[in-house]
């Protein structure tokens, strides 16, 4: 291998040398090289070691499928050398070696291959005791690159994009399709995974002056200059989803493209022939050799043998000659030449053409190709080992057929069928808005590809209602078979590889079928064919042909495996994208931060868990906040509560139907607890309803329930067609709870309204001004003290907070957080929906039967509750006290209650009450355990049992004097 003199259309920039390192050796390539082409230009022929047997491997396809040439580039594992652009100062190492490419200590495995047939580990290493050891050993012996867990995150934003027609593949047919659609008026995006557009028109040439090259370049230029065409190279269409969503993967990002129509012009993968030694470095596909020649100006060998079964093989032979490479012989699997003219040309230049011959064996010397051994085919298609001919060569160029790159077509829902004439699967019925052209459509001749592309482009535009001036061209039928139906040859010594990813040999398939894995999907899973990094791009078609031969079925009947996204591996970083983490803040967020709040996540909300106090730890600060509320006054931001308005003539009736309680009899200016259940009678939310007027209600929901409740109420109102409007003002209104024996004192300083018990009693609701701010004030007692929940517009919240804090400063007002509130309500025995209840809890079990008015005509869940009311309870929510002296600090929420060795309940809330000086909690228990005074055992995390006693809740101010009769208190 060596670098040639400049070639027309080459992709490299010879003015810029690029130095890089492979396993300690310095090499030099050019800008525009891939790693593989640069190594080939430096005459490096062994690029990697195989997955299982650690055999040396070189160039195979140079088309992004050479998965035996995977490299570690710093922290990037599994870099594909054949497709990755060369970069300055790359330091590269082959993956999957022990000691490097040349001295891989695991290459001995190749000699053990007769003992390691496919599936050997299923049969040999299934002992349960030893399996972990075997697993570890095999994971060490095989594998790919190293994942770095300390890599700095790369920015890989995802984006959306839109177009009329997306053309996938910028080869001759794709370019023609894009131009035709754009000329018809469509906005076209055309993508290609290669660094440059042109596809096979940039390498499937005979010499530099081939007119195919010039005509392809002309179309590339026209696409690049067309005002309605966006040509994007280095872009992989990784999948095809419903509604024509196609993820386009670029180096640093994914674009989710939504196209109105998709033209799939993805071409075909050249397929290897299966013969002994077909993996020896130096054996390569003809398209790989031509890519090296025309794109990177690298001579892939000095003396070649060509194995052909189609016109492409002959053209490749002529191409090698045109670039000064000695062609020792051409072996044609066919009895008559695939290309008469080319055959004559070769003969005239003294190149022997062996018709009806194949390669019996490729032999290596010092890890690279040394000889090709040809043999004539027998009438049954085997090779005659008795009449071999050995030819010295350092390159064996194989062109025996193609497999359509139809993965995206399958994903789009196309039906494919096997065309015997072409020996290829081709699209049959295509889904609406999806079109195919070029080789994936079974069209191979250059002129025919251009015509087919134009047809597809016009049809795509036509599907969008765009009409071109001219008629769609006729696409000439293919006159030659591009693929041999069975280029697969057995050898008594094996090493005739079908799948290069997984080191699967021909005999492995025979063994699998013999063992009953004779269906293509079963065969795939047993042999792992097509499950390696190339996902079967150069093995699946041969596997199908082998299975058909072994089972005596037609290929159509064998079918293909399922082609799932992604078409190529996609880095997880790309899938992660920018990473949007939605956060929600109340308007008081800056106030909390200024006060030293330690924030916690509650759904999307960031809420103060507690306010840090110098000299106090977390628990100390929380307990101080609790005592401030009990003894003086505290202020908490409850803006996260759901806040919904219902108004209109049917507003009261509507609430009666969606909540369990009764609201029609509420007088304006009052509030009432509300409980919501679902159709099964399970508690799903609770809150407080305030009646602001005859037809106006304002109510709160739980923090997590606001969106769900609003959506459900809207759904129900749409169904019931009641005369009321529902407005969700959760984010547009702020709310604080001013609570404590001195709450009234604070509030009175900020309003002219009469706050006396007589005028503003417990459970009243008033619309008044607080600090000059229009506010809705609800007198409720969630934390068990005199309390006012004050609701104002979002933009007034900061002013309200500042005013309250200032007014309360003399009275020792203190902000308190979520943890203190949870403790305060626990002392009162108030439940939290979702914490003290679960997805099966009904109101009777939760002790909320008082909030269910079964005598109403109807409410959601009423029928279920009527049934449940007649049944014995399965569980009951009760208060518990932990017996002092034991490991009470280790009891936590969700710890199980154990009775007679069985689970008999769980702790739903537990904490130390600074007010009471003991540990209290709520537990959902089996009814037999729920009697006050009963002792229960709670199993903590380390398995120890802690004793608790069932008690009556509330634990504090049981008759509610402090919240109801605050003046007297």
């Amino acid at each position, binding site marked *: 291998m060596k670098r040639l003199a400049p070639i027309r259309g080459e992709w490299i920039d010879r003015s810029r040398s690029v130095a890089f390192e492979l396993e300690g050796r310095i090499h030099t390539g050019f800008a525009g090289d891939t790693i593989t082409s640069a190594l080939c230009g430096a005459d490096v022929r062994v690029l990697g070691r195989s997955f299982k047997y650690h055999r040396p491997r070189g160039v195979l396809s140079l088309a992004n499928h050479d998965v035996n040439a995977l490299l570690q580039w710093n922290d990037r594992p599994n870099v594909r050398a054949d497709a990755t652009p060369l970069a300055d100062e790359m330091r590269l190492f082959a993956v999957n070696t022990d000691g490097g490419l040349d001295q891989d200590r695991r290459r001995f495995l190749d000699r053990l291959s007769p003992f390691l047939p496919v599936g050997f580990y299923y049969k040999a290493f299934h002992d349960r005791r030893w399996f972990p050891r075997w697993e570890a050993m095999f994971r060490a012996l095989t594998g790919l690159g190293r994942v770095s867990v300390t890599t700095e995150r790369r920015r890989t934003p995802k984006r959306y994009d*839109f177009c009329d027609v997306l053309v996938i593949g910028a080869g001759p047919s794709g370019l023609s399709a894009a131009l035709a659609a754009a000329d018809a008026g469509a906005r076209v995006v055309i993508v290609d995974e290669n660094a440059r557009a042109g596809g096979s028109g940039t390498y499937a040439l005979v010499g530099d002056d081939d007119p195919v090259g010039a005509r392809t370049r002309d179309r590339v230029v026209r696409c690049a200059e067309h005002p309605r065409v966006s040509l994007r190279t280095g872009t992989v269409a990784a999948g095809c989803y419903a509604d024509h969503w196609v993820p386009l993967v670029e180096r640093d990002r994914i674009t989710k493209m939504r196209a109105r129509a998709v033209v799939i012009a993805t071409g075909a993968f050249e397929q290897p022939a299966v013969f002994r030694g077909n993996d020896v470095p130096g054996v390569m596909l003809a398209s790989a050799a031509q890519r090296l020649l025309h794109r990177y100006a690298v001579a892939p060998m000095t003396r070649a043998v060509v194995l052909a079964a189609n016109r492409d093989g002959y053209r490749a032979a002529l191409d090698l000659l045109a670039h000064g490479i000695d062609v020792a012989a051409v072996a044609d699997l066919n009895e008559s030449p695939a290309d008469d003219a080319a055959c004559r040309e070769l003969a005239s230049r003294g190149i022997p053409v062996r018709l009806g011959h194949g390669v019996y064996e490729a032999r290596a010397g010092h890890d690279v190709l040394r000889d090709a051994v040809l043999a004539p085919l027998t009438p049954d298609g085997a090779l005659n080992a008795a009449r071999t001919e050995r030819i010295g060569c350092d390159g064996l160029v194989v062109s025996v057929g193609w497999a359509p790159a139809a993965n995206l077509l399958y994903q789009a829902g196309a039906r494919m069928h096997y065309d015997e004439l072409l020996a290829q699967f081709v699209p049959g019925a295509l889904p609406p808005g999806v079109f195919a052209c070029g080789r994936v459509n079974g069209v191979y001749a250059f002129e025919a590809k251009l015509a087919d592309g134009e047809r597809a482009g016009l049809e795509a535009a036509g599907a969008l209602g765009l009409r071109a001036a001219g008629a769609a061209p006729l696409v000439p039928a293919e006159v030659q078979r591009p693929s041999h139906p069975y280029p697969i040859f057995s050898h008594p010594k094996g090493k005739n590889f079908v799948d290069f990813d997984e080191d699967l040999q021909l005999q492995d398939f025979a063994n699998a079928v013999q063992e009953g894995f004779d269906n293509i999907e079963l065969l795939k899973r047993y042999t792992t064919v097509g499950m390696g990094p190339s996902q079967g791009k150069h093995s699946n078609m041969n596997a199908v042909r082998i299975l058909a031969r072994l089972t005596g079925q037609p290929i159509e009947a064998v079918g293909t495996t399922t082609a799932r996204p992604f078409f190529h591996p996609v880095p997880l970083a790309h899938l992660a994208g920018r990473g949007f983490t939605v956060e929600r*803040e109340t308007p008081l967020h800056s106030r909390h931060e200024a006060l030293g709040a330690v924030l916690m996540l509650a759904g999307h909300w960031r809420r103060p868990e507690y306010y840090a106090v110098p000299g106090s730890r977390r628990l100390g600060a929380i307990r101080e906040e609790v005592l401030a509320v009990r003894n003086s006054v505290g202020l908490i931001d409850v803006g996260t509560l759901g806040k919904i308005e219902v108004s209109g003539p049917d507003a009261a009736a509507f609430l009666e139907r969606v909540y369990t309680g009764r609201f029609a009899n509420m007088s304006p200016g009052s509030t009432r607890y509300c409980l919501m259940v679902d159709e099964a009678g399970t508690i799903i939310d609770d809150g407080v309803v305030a009646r602001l007027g005859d037809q106006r209600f304002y109510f709160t929901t739980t923090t997590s329930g606001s969106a769900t409740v609003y959506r459900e109420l809207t759904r129900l109102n749409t169904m019931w067609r009641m005369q009321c409007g529902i407005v969700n003002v959760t984010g547009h209104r702020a709310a604080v709870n001013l609570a404590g024996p001195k709450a009234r004192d604070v509030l009175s300083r900020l309003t002219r309204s009469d706050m006396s018990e007589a005028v503003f009693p417990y459970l009243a609701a008033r619309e008044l001004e607080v600090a000059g701010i229009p506010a809705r004030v609800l007198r409720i007692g969630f934390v068990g003290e005199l309390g006012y929940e004050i609701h104002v517009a979002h933009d*007034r919240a*900061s002013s309200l907070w*500042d005013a309250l804090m200032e007014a309360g400063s003399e009275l020792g007002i203190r902000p308190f957080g979520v943890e203190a509130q949870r403790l305060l309500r626990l002392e009162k025995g108030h439940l939290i929906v979702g914490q003290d209840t679960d997805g099966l809890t009904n109101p009777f079990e939760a002790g909320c039967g008082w909030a269910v008015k079964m005598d109403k005509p109807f409410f959601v869940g009423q029928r279920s509750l009527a049934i449940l009311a007649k049944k014995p309870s399965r569980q009951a929510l009760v208060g518990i006290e932990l017996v002092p002296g034991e490991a009470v600090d280790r009891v936590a929420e969700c710890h199980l209650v154990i009775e007679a060795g069985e689970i008999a309940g769980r702790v739903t809330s537990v904490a130390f009450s600074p007010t009471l000086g003991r540990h209290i909690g709520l537990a959902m228990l089996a009814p037999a355990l729920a009697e006050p005074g009963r002792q229960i055992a709670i199993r903590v995390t380390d398995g120890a049992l802690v004793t608790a006693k069932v008690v009556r809740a509330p634990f504090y101010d049981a008759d509610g004097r402090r919240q109801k009769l605050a003046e007297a208190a």
Partner: protein
Amino acid sequence: MTSVTRTGPLHQAHVASAAAWRDHAGMRIVDEHKREGEPAMLALGDRSHLARAGLKGPGAAAWLATQGIEVPAGPNTWRALPAGRDSNGLVARLATSEFLVEDDGVRAFALQTALGHGTTDVHPVLRQDCALVLTGQRANDVLLQVCSVDFAALLAQDSPEGGPLALTSMAGVSVLVVPQRARDVPLFRIWCDPTFGAYLHRTLLDIVAEEGGGPVGLARLARFLHPEGDRP
């Protein structure tokens, strides 16, 4: 009594970047940022201070008509208020029977007052939105990274009298987007729940900065939108 001021949803987000503030109807708003984006190229501004009136209900369209507001013909469209686009005024039809009116103050406040607690079939909707404006030739590149709507297609249907709007999700947040053109430059007006405002603003501003833009204060935005100086 404590003197009352209003606080916009992005007030705290602007503190570090703001160079000059001014008051508008009791709210401090950023007139100028220390480093600003170029509105013709890419800039993100905050217009949460504008006045809004929201209403819904089967009688909402008819009620607006009685107030002299010509409503958009169908859902998901908007219409400029009679004073023209220079007043920033628009009426957006968010659903068959839900509307948002926004302007510099006069009409929206008047509507709020007139509607009061509503009628039997018209219900007031408190709108304290975080209102952003994303302008510039590269604005759509930013939106393509956060939203799956083809705003370029919507923008093509824009006219000075009105056009389509989108109720969609942007970076995980429900938003209302009105695509417009100002001096032939794409301009997207974006509204979201104020409690999501800081997050959405931060997210958009990150992308705007990556794309070479920046925040813009109301002074520069006004100069861009009204180069003749006929509006403040």
